[in-house]
């Protein structure tokens, strides 16, 4: 299998498997503790409103754009404005399988309803991010997987739905 060049698991999530005390790291929970997906803007003409991946990013609140000295979220919501948490869809029926020797995470396709771009400059979905949510603050939601490579990127929101159709083989494997 080829390695998609731009997709990556966040290293700080991987390392939690070695840490006894790291909480909210598992991917086999449901409801508020499930794995969720959000859409983010990258590579906008104005870099101040774009998210840039970093190996150092750990939590949901790292999904920000610089925005000229006043950081804002780079996540799309229903209205296209950067309102954290407003546009996130759960990966339902999350499954953890062993395929060959590799653990594979998989789940149902997700659909974001009526994605628009009314916020100035917020006009292109360039990536999606999976994170492990919990009932606490978004600053404790662990980033798991960053994906900006795949057919369909970038999406220019038009008020219609955006569907993420995962590969038949799964979402990611370690």
């Amino acid at each position: 299998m080829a390695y998609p060049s731009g997709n990556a698991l966040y290293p700080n999530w991987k390392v939690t498997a070695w840490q006894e005390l790291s909480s909210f790291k598992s991917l086999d929970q449901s409801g508020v503790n499930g794995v969720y997906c959000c859409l983010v803007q990258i590579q906008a003409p104005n870099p101040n409103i774009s998210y840039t991946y970093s190996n150092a990013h750990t939590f949901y609140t790292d999904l920000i754009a610089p925005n000229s000295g006043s950081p804002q979220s780079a996540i799309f919501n229903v209205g296209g404005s950067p309102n954290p948490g407003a546009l996130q869809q759960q990966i339902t029926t999350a499954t953890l399988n062993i395929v060959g020797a590799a653990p594979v995470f998989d789940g149902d396709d997700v659909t974001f309803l009526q994605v628009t771009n009314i916020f100035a400059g917020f006009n292109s979905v360039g990536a999606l991010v999976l994170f492990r949510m919990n009932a606490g603050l978004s600053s404790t939601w662990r980033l798991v997987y960053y994906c900006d490579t795949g057919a369909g990127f970038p999406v220019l929101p038009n008020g219609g739905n955006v569907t993420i159709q995962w590969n038949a083989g799964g979402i990611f494997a370690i």
Partner: protein
Amino acid sequence: MKDPLQQQDATALFNEISQRLTGTPVNIVRDIAVSILINAIRATARTRSDAEAQINEVFYRAKSILLDAHYDSVTGKPRGVFPYTQVITPPLHVEPSGGINPK
């Protein structure tokens, strides 16, 4: 912008024709569309000047919709006008072994 086909079940008819034409080469689809347009004008225009006025109006509106609504005047790139579903199909990501992140 309001979808110009949102009248008298025109959308349903448009979708039906579009489905029927799926897989047809673009140049043939274009020829069919123009032929339908010509027939429609021919059926209603009683004189040559009437026909000319009608086709001028249709193409003026078509050009406005195509260029003003469907393409961004600054970037020149196509843009979504009427809501429709878009699909992203990420590949299965296999994290490289050895602990070296591809980013």
